[in-house]
């Protein structure tokens, strides 16, 4: 692992290949931003290409980053609330691993979306745990030894404790960032601001790199300040086929094609041969999807979003 104090760098721009190879290593714990959309897809493909192994995935509701990296055998442990493709369908790789141990048995530690959010919040605050009323009394609590239910020392009522999540590396995708890593969303952010802060190393990917002056003109939009960040990668259409607010709509017809293709183990391998290994980088992927298709997804999005800027 890289030991340079990259958080102090005054220019953190690098390629996706470089960011992933410097900060994602065998045996690391990793978290991705995005929930129910805004999935960090392009970096997932790059991790498939580079082949880092024995990963622990920490997340609220991962999609491609969970399914693909389980299917390739790169993930050995997950700490999540949910893993599927939402409206598009269930996760075939997760099912194969959990039900049949294909390609390998994975360790599963389950939480809920809120309590994963609280775990990242604790991590972002430098605290050991967070308390909540969620989980207690459910089977989630019963089957997961990481969850503790105690008597609150103040009121003697029951309270649930969930431990801080401090992943080795986080990959967080935002609308815009400057070269120092000041990162802005133009709409909602799920757990991203805390995932970015909780991690030891934080890679910001963005639709667009903007000048520092533009950040200073709109500081109310900055959700991650530069001192949190180790790398900045400009990565337009990073989430495709998922949506990115104020940037492009969800390409659900593409997702349905993908779901049909990855249903079997062979189909999954073929899909990755084509879309991960068959593309040398994300630009190549966009070329293959078709720039005109991507542009249409952006054009239709502009209809719905009035720019706040």
């Amino acid at each position, binding site marked *: 692992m890289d030991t340079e104090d990259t958080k102090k760098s005054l220019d953190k721009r690098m390629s996706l290949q470089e960011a992933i190879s410097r900060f994602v290593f065998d045996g690391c714990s990793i978290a991705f931003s995005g929930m129910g959309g805004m999935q960090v897809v392009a970096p997932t493909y790059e991790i498939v290409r580079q082949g880092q192994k024995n990963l622990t995935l920490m997340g609220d509701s991962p999609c491609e980053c969970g399914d693909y990296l389980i299917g390739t055998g790169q993930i050995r442990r997950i700490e999540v609330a949910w893993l599927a493709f939402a409206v598009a369908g269930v996760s075939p790789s997760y099912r194969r691993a959990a039900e049949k*141990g294909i390609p390998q048995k994975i360790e599963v530690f389950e939480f809920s979306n809120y309590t994963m959010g609280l775990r990242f919040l604790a991590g972002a605050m430098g605290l050991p745990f967070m308390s*909540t009323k969620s989980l207690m*009394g459910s089977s989630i609590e019963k089957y997961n030894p990481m969850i503790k239910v105690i008597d609150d020392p103040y009121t003697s009522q029951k309270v649930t404790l969930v431990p801080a999540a401090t992943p080795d590396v986080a990959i967080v995708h935002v609308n815009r960032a400057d070269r120092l890593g000041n990162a802005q969303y133009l709409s*909602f952010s799920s757990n991203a601001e805390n995932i970015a802060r909780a991690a030891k190393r934080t890679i910001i990917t963005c639709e667009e790199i903007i000048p520092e002056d533009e950040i200073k003109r709109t500081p109310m939009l900055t959700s991650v300040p530069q001192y949190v960040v180790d790398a900045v990668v400009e990565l337009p259409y990073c989430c495709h086929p998922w949506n990115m607010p104020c940037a492009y709509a969800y390409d*659900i017809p593409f997702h349905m094609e993908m779901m049909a293709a990855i249903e079997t183990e062979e189909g999954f391998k073929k899909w990755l041969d084509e879309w991960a290994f068959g593309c040398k980088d994300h630009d190549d992927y966009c070329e293959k999807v078709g720039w005109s*298709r991507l542009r249409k997804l952006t054009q239709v999005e502009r209809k719905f979003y009035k720019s706040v800027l």
Partner: protein
Amino acid sequence: MDTKITYAEDYTLQELLVAAAAREIKDREVVFVGVGIPCLGALVAKLTHAPNVILTVESGCIGPTPYRLMLGIGDNSCGENAICVTSLWRAFSDQQRGYFDVGMLGGAQIDKYGNLNSTAIFGGGNYDRPKTRLPGSGGANDIAISAKRTLIMMNQQRRRFLEKVDFVTSPGYLDGPGSREKYGYPGGGPSVIISNMAIFRFDEKTKEAYLYSVHPGVSADDVRREVSWDLKVSPDLKTTPPPTKEEVEIIRILDSQKIYTGKGLKGLTFDNYMAMLDSSYEKLRTMFR
């Protein structure tokens, strides 16, 4: 049935379910929505009897008025015309604090106390090697514990309506009266189950789900056959009212490609999808005005 209302004659089962969900929502309530039929229900409520309802979505969106079909809880539409866009932990904290009136849940299995399983069907295996691995809680456990009341939507099948579920992902009334109090859950628990055959409510004393109404053309015996426990039937069993003409018209505009109320996503081409987004903006903007 109310005779002053014009009920639809031509409607589908899914449209009846959307209308049934809509009728569970009161004006000025804060509703934590899930995608699909429950979300359509909340939007229909907003466009009819509950104009001041506030939708909230897990990704951190509060009070959106989307001009297109919501295709996920982190879809761009969730932030459209919202009163606040924030983060996931903030939205859920508002719920735990007691600001959310209604939550919407579903699952693969349910028991008579409204406990839901969306984690795993053991089927002879166990948690570590289940027959069917399901996606998991997502935000369901948090909603079940903290929303003031929850609305549950289920497919009516004997293997889904069980005496005991394999795994309690989302607590209803757990083991019955007093269970939620024992843990001091902030929320009140499930108030209704809407299935494709019937509507169930919960007995105030026993906390057991009982048959409240059957959908048109369904009998109490039909429902009993699809429930594993000894189902109690309301002495005043009702027939679920069909959707109104107005409700059906609204649903067909909201879900013009019948993604949630018809054939689903299969066969949706990119061009049709683009056309759907394009036309929905104008139509919905006029409707929500």
